[in-house]
C-alpha cells in the first residue's frame, strides 16, 4: 500500500535539518521506498510504498522513526520527537459501556464516551493533511479517526452513541443471511465468517476493522460519541474485506496486523484531539479489554551469522547500536550468542534470525556490502545437458528459418472458443475459469489457429512466411497438462512452396531418416493435400493446405499452407555433425524414369519400395512434374554383372508398384 504524507507533518515528529530530497534518497535506500516527492505549495509531499510486512511504517510516526535512525547513520543529525498521548481522565461521570467478546474474536478493544461534541469542519491543517493523503475531509468527528490512523498507524472508529440501542457492545459472528448497510450506502449479505459488532439488541452497528454501518454513523446533529478502537484478526479482516469487495484503508491496515500497543497510542491521541477540536468532554473511564497477554519475542543471533551473510567484518558494538536504534533491546549476551527482544511494533514482521540480519544490513547500507561473483560449480546433470542442447537446437532452427525468410511471432497461449470451433481443434482443451477476455480462454493444442490469425492480420504484406515455437498444452489424467514444445509454420501460396521449406528443415536436422505419408488426418486441412511427417520412424508432425472453407469464413481469399512439428522429436533426431561414410564405389549410373501418378501409389511408397528391392540404388532424386507425370532420377551402382538395372526397375514399377511407366532413359538423355 502507499501512503502520502506532508513533509510539515513528518517534521512534527522528526527533528532534523535534512532536506526532503535527502530524506527521500536515504529513506529509500535503507527503508520504505519514497516513490515520489512532490512539491505542495511551500510544503512537500512524500508518496511512500509500504510493503505488507512493514505496517509499522504506514504512518507519520512510523516514517519519522525510520528516518531518525537512517539519517543519523548517514551522518545527518536527527531525533524522533515523542507522540503526546496523555491517559484520558474523565471530565464527568457516565454510565459505563459494556464490551463483550465471548468468542474472543478481537484481540483488544478500547472504548470511551465523549459528550457535548461540537460537530463542524476540521481546522485547515487537518483537512490539508487528510486531503494530501487522499482522504476526504468530512467533519471533525470522522476526520479525527482518519487523522489518528495516518499519524499513529492504527485505524479508529467513532459511533453516534445515541444511535445505539443500548450501552452494550457485543462482538459476534454474523449469522448466515444477515444484512447490513455500510456507511457508503451499499447493502451486504453476511455469513458466519464475518465478525460484527451488535449493539446488544441483535442489531449490527459495525463491521469492525473494515467499515462502519449507516445506522450508527455520526452526523451533523451528533451530540455524544463513542470513540472505539479494536485490534482485529488479520485473516478475518482480509477474508471479509475481499469477499464483500470493501477495500478501505482501514482494511488495508488491519489485514497486516498493526501493533495492538499502537491501538492504545492512537486511542489516547484521538481522545486528546476530540477534546481540543470538538470541545468534547470525556464521560466516565475508558474501557480496555485485552483477550490475550502481550507476547514477548526474543531472537538469538551470533556475530558470525551476520558477518557470514554480509561478508563484512561488522563490529559487535555497531550491530547492537543499530538494533537499539530500531527498538531492539539486547536482552542477554552469552558467549557469542546475542539475544534481542523484538519491539511490539515489529512483532509481526520479525521472527527468525534472518529478519534481524536484514535489519542490520539495511541500516548498515547495502551499498557498502562488497560484490563477488558466485563460486563456479561444475554441475554434471543429464537433464540439464538435454535442456541445453534442446535450447541450442531450437535457436539454430530459429536462425535457419529466419535466414530462409520467415518471421517469428509469439502468440498468446490461449485462443477463443470460437476459433477452436472453427478449426475443430479440440473439445477437451484446458480452459481458463475466469478469463480476462474471450480471446484468451482455451489453451492451445495446435498453433495453427493463431498462425492463421497472424496471416490474416498481415495480409497486406507481399509474402507471408511466419513461424512460432511455443508450448502446446495436452491434458493428462490426474496431472498437469503436458507442455510440449512445438514449431508451427504458415505460408501463403501453393502446397509445394512450404513443402520445400519443410524438406529443407528436415534436411537441416541431419536426422538419419525422414519421410512423409499422405493424409494428415486433421479437421482443418484439405486431407488430399496434406501429409504426416516422420523422423527416425517417429511421428513428428504434419503439413497441409488449410481447408478453404475455414479461410472463407476468415475472409482470406488466397491459399495458405501450414505445418506443425514436434520439437521434442525434431531435437532428438537433430545432429550437428555425422560420420562420413565410405564411398569408393566409383561413378554411379544415372537413369531417369517417368511414371504416371496413381492415388494408390505415392512417391514415398514407390521410392521406398525401389530402394528396398534394389540395394544397388544409391539415391533417388525428384526431377520434375508435368501434369500427372512424375520424373525421378535414379543413381545406382549395378556392379560388374549387370550394366544397368533399368529394365528390372521398370518391370518392378509396372508389376509391383502398379504404376504406368511412360519413359525410361539414361541420365544423359540418350
Amino acid at each position, binding site marked *: 500500500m502507499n501512503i502520502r504524507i506532508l513533509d510539515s507533518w513528518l517534521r512534527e515528529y522528526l527533528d532534523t535539518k535534512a532536506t526532503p530530497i535527502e530524506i527521500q*534518497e536515504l529513506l529509500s535506500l535503507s*527503508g520504505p521506498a519514497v516513490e515520489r516527492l512532490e512539491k505542495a505549495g511551500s510544503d512537500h509531499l512524500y508518496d511512500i510504498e509500504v510493503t505488507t510486512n512493514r505496517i509499522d511504517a504506514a504512518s507519520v510516526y512510523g516514517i519519522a522513526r525510520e528516518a531518525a535512525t537512517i539519517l543519523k547513520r548517514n551522518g545527518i543529525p536527527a531525533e524522533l520527537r515523542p507522540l503526546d498521548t496523555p491517559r484520558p481522565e474523565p471530565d464527568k461521570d457516565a454510565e459505563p459501556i459494556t464490551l463483550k467478546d465471548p468468542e474472543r474474536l478481537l484481540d483488544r478493544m478500547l472504548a470511551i464516551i465523549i459528550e457535548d461534541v461540537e460537530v463542524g469542519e476540521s481546522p485547515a491543517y487537518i483537512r490539508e493533511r487528510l486531503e494530501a493523503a487522499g482522504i476526504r475531509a468530512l467533519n471533525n468527528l470522522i476526520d479525527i479517526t482518519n487523522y489518528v490512523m495516518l499519524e499513529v498507524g492504527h485505524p479508529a472508529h467513532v459511533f453516534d452513541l445515541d444511535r445505539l440501542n443500548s450501552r452494550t457492545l457485543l462482538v459476534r459472528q454474523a449469522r448466515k443471511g444477515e444484512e447490513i448497510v455500510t456507511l457508503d450506502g451499499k447493502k451486504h449479505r453476511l455469513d458466519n465468517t464475518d465478525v460484527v459488532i451488535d449493539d446488544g439488541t441483535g442489531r449490527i452497528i459495525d463491521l469492525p476493522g473494515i467499515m462502519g454501518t449507516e445506522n450508527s454513523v455520526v452526523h451533523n446533529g451528533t451530540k455524544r460519541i463513542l470513540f472505539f478502537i479494536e485490534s482485529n484478526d488479520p485473516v478475518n479482516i482480509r477474508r471479509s474485506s475481499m469477499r464483500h469487495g470493501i477495500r478501505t484503508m482501514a482494511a488495508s491496515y488491519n489485514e497486516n496486523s498493526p501493533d495492538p500497543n499502537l491501538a492504545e497510542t492512537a486511542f489516547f491521541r484521538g481522545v486528546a484531539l476530540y477534546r481540543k477540536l470538538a470541545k468534547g468532554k470525556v464521560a466516565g473511564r475508558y474501557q480496555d479489554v485485552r483477550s490475550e497477554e502481550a507476547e514477548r519475542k526474543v531472537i538469538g543471533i551470533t556475530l558470525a551469522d551476520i558477518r557470514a551473510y554480509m561478508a563484512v567484518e561488522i563490529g559487535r558494538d555497531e550491530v547492537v547500536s543499530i538494533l537499539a536504534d530500531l527498538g531492539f533491546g539486547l536482552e542477554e549476551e552469552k558467549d557469542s550468542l546475542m539475544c534481542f527482544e523484538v519491539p511490539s511494533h515489529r512483532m509481526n514482521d520479525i521472527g527468525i534470525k534472518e529478519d534481524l540480519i536484514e535489519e542490520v544490513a539495511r541500516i548498515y547500507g547495502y551499498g557498502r556490502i562488497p560484490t563477488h561473483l558466485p563460486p563456479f560449480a561444475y*554441475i554434471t*546433470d543429464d537433464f540439464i545437458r538435454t*535442456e*541445453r542442447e534442446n535450447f541450442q537446437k531450437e535457436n539454430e532452427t530459429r536462425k535457419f528459418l529466419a535466414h530462409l525468410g520467415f518471421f517469428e511471432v509469439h502468440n498468446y497461449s490461449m485462443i477463443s472458443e470460437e476459433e477452436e470451433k472453427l478449426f475443430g481443434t479440440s473439445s477437451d482443451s484446458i480452459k481458463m475459469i475466469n478469463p480476462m477476455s474471450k480471446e484468451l480462454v482455451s489453451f492451445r493444442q495446435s498453433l495453427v489457429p493463431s498462425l492463421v490469425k497472424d496471416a490474416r492480420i*498481415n495480409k497486406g504484406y507481399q509474402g507471408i512466411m*511466419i513461424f512460432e515455437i511455443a508450448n502446446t498444452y495436452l491434458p493428462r489424467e490426474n496431472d498437469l497438462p503436458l507442455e510440449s514444445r512445438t514449431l508451427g509454420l504458415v505460408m501463403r501460396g501453393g502446397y509445394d512452396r512450404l513443402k520445400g521449406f519443410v524438406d529443407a528443415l528436415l534436411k537441416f536436422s541431419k536426422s538419419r531418416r525422414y519421410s512423409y505419408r499422405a493424409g494428415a488426418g486433421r479437421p482443418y486441412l484439405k486431407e488430399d493435400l496434406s501429409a504426416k511427417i516422420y523422423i527416425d520412424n517417429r511421428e513428428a508432425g504434419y503439413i497441409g493446405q488449410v481447408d478453404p472453407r475455414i479461410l472463407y469464413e476468415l475472409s482470406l481469399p488466397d491459399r495458405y499452407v501450414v505445418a506443425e512439428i514436434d520439437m521434442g522429436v525434431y531435437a532428438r533426431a537433430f545432429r550437428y555433425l555425422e560420420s562420413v561414410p565410405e564411398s569408393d564405389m566409383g561413378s554411379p549410373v544415372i537413369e531417369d524414369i517417368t511414371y504416371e501418378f496413381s492415388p494408390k501409389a505415392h512417391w514415398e511408397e514407390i521410392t521406398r519400395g525401389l530402394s528396398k528391392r534394389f540395394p544397388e540404388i544409391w539415391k533417388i532424386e525428384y526431377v520434375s512434374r508435368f501434369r500427372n507425370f512424375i520424373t525421378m532420377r535414379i543413381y545406382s551402382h549395378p556392379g560388374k554383372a549387370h550394366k544397368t538395372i533399368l529394365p528390372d526397375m521398370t518391370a518392378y514399377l509396372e508389376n509391383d508398384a502398379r504404376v504406368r511407366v511412360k519413359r525410361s532413359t539414361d541420365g544423359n538423355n540418350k
Partner: protein
Amino acid sequence: MDPKKIDPVVNNLIDKINSAHDLNELEAVEVSVLGRKGTVNEWLRVLKGVKDSEEKKKLGSTINTTKGRITRAIEVKRRELLQRTDDTMDPTLPGQQVPVGSIHPVSRTIEEIVDIFTKIGFYKVSYHEIEYEYFAFDSLNMPSTHPARDEFESFAVDGPPSEKFGRMVLSPHTSSGQVREMWRRKKPPIRMINVARCFRRNWDVTHTPMFHQFEGLCVDKGINITHLKGAIDFFAKEYFGYDVKIRLRPYHFQFTEPSFEVDTTCTICRGTMRVNGEKCRVCKSGWLELGGAGMVHPYVLREGKIDPDRYSGWAFGFGVERVYMMKYQLSDLRKLFSGELGLFPEINR
C-alpha cells in the same frame, strides 16, 4: 597440311568459344570459324589440294570431327548464354530479391540472457506455465490467507486439482520453479535460470496478460549477499554496458529474507539524469527498476528439502520484456504479442 597441327588450333578456338562473354562475342567467333571466309573453309580448300587419297581421307575425317566439336561447343555455349539473364546497366539497382526473415525480440533477448548466465556457470530450465498452487504460492511462504497473494492477481484453470498440491493456476511468476528445482536436484549446488511464460491480469500499453520472466536461483554452501550482488551486477554490465551500476533497496517478498528491489543505472541517460540537455523523463534520479531479489527464505529451503543450517541461497526474478525495453524503445508492449509483422522494422525496408 598436317592434321596434327589442327588440334592445338582447335583447342584454342574452343577456349575462345567457352570464354565468350556474350552472344555477340560468340557470334564473332562462330563467323570467324564457320563463316564463308572462316577457318574451316580454309581447311577445306587445303583439303581440295591434297593429292594423296590416303592422306586426303585422313585429313577429311579430322576436319569433320573437328567441325563437329566446334559446332557442339558453340551450341552449348549459346544455350548457356541464352539462359543467363541480361546483365544490368545500372550496378546500383536492387538485385534479385532474396527473402530475409527475423527472430522475435523476446526469443533473441532470452538467448542473450541465457548466454550471459551460462558464462558464470548457470543452466537454463523451463518450468510449468500451468502449475499447482503449492509450487506457485504455498511453498513460497504465501498461504491463501496472506495479503501478499493479492498482488498476484492470477488466473484459475479448470484442470483436475491435486490432493497434495492444490488447484491448478496459471503461474504469475517464475518463482514457482524454485522448489521444483530443489526437489529435482535433491541437493546443492543449484545454479538455475528458469525462463518461462507468466500470466497476470494487466492489459495496457506497458502490460500484457502474458509475458516472460527469468528466475535465478543459486543454492550452495556459504552463499551470501555478495554473491547476489555479484551475479546481478555481472548481468547488468554484460547486457546493458560496462558503465552500468546496480543498487539494492529494501523490499519485501514472502519467499526471501532479506528482500531487495534492484535498480540499474538509467540506460537512457546513463545516470546523468539529462538527455539532450533536458531532464530524463524515463528514470527516477538516474536509476531504473530492474526487478526483485533476495536471499532464499529458510521456509522455502525447507520446503525444498534443503537444510537451511547447512546451505543458503539467493534468488531474483526479472522480466524479459522489461530488460528488452530498457535497452530498446517500444512504444506499446502489446505489439510484441499481437502478431503484427510491423514489429520488425526491416520488413518495410
